[in-house]
């Protein structure tokens, strides 16, 4: 192999991360199926009247996406923690922020992107018109990174706790409320014919805020997990 240039290292880190993700590609189905099932529950529970479903469709889709991401969060760093690779990441020569960003990028592409690509199908099943679906996808694209970053920070805090499923939900859901509110209100605004610029800009601001702040919180949370 040729001499590894610095960039090559980062490239090989990313490629090995995606290789691992590819080898677990069937695991990516879990959040997807969970998302569809949760969306299925509401029409069954509330009744099939299209008019009613249409008004609550944004809420259903956003809540289902949020819960699906929450479910996929508990094992973001769990495998690394259990087999000792988290310690190596901390002691590695790369900055821990870079390693976490690569890990989160892979996790987003594997677990979250399929949700967003599938959401139009569910949306049309719930009677959402095409241009509303565009805003839905846009709001999901802006909102899910926030969900992932905030969720990962808290899930890394609970790494040292063996069964942390319920606790993770208790800690994370209050922090998800703003994203849910602005996400659904963006879609509702387009459905009502108004422009969805306001909520979308706020979502974008939240996205930038969490992109800048969360990596450092994740790093200090990892350092706590590793010091155990």
């Amino acid at each position: 192999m040729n001499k590894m240039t610095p960039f090559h290292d980062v490239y090989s880190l990313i490629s090995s991360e995606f290789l691992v993700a590819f080898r677990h590609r069937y695991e990516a189905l879990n959040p997807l199926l969970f998302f569809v099932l949760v969306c299925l529950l509401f029409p069954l529970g509330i009744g099939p009247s299209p008019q009613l479903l249409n008004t609550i469709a944004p809420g259903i889709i956003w809540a289902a996406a949020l819960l699906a991401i929450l479910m996929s969060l508990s094992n973001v760093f769990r495998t690394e923690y259990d087999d000792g690779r988290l310690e190596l990441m901390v002691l590695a020569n790369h900055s821990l922020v870079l390693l976490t960003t690569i890990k989160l990028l892979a996790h987003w592409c594997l677990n979250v992107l399929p949700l967003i690509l599938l959401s139009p199908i569910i949306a049309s099943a719930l009677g959402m018109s095409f241009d509303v679906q565009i805003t839905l996808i846009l709001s999901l694209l802006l909102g899910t990174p926030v969900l992932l970053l905030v969720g990962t920070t808290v899930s890394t805090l609970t790494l040292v706790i063996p069964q942390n499923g319920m606790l993770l939900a208790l800690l994370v859901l209050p922090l998800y409320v703003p994203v849910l509110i602005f996400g659904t209100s963006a879609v509702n605004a387009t459905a009502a014919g108004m422009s969805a610029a306001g909520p979308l800009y706020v979502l974008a601001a939240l996205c930038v805020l969490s992109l800048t702040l969360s990596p450092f919180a994740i790093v200090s949370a990892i350092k706590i997990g590793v010091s155990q």
Partner: protein
Amino acid sequence: MMKWLHTMASSAWFYRFSGKMIPWLMGIFGVLFLVGLYGGLVAAPADYQQGDAFRIIYIHVPAAWMSLFIYIVMAVYGFIALVWRIKLAEVLLISSAPIGAAFTFLALVTGSLWGKPMWGTWWSWDARLTSELLLLFLYWGVIGLYAAIEDKRTASRAVSILTLIGVVNIPIIHYSVEWWNTLHQGSSVTLTDKPSMATEMLIPLLVMATAFKVYYAISLLIRTRAELVEREPNSKWLKQVIEENNHE
């Protein structure tokens, strides 16, 4: 400065210092609380709109202020604990959480009791009450995380980070709930804009608010002392304290 910070923060010094402070604080709180009660229940005239129901404000508003104030103070303790690794700041943080949760719960229940005469329902998704409810979940999250991790030093560091994340999210949650509330309900009379208060109505409110702050100090000091004793049972300073207690 660091030298002073570390001596000031040594458990032994704090334990003795708080021991002396608590009786004084109790006295101050007693006076302030009685004055506030008298002002709120008797001296303040009834509100022209809500009649005497508005007197609940003397518990609800100070409690709501305290719930926010304590979380911010906890975030400050968390920051100090993370940056300077001062054990006392960790103990202060986790001792404040239950007090904050109690005030938030108090604000919630009195808020819905006060809302009943105005809106006829116990819970009307008012913006303030909803963000107060979410704040309660943030407190329970802090307490839950601390209880879940068995090594208390690691637990304190994890809780410090969670509190800092929470304090960044509080304004975001508050304004998103405001936005959501005005979006769907329009601005009915909500608790947010307190009716402009005549001075004789306002003074008892401020007295009660100060009384609650003094109360917070008392409960915090007692809880911190208990936590310090639990964390360092066989430390030298505690031996002396126990011997002194035995002689009394």
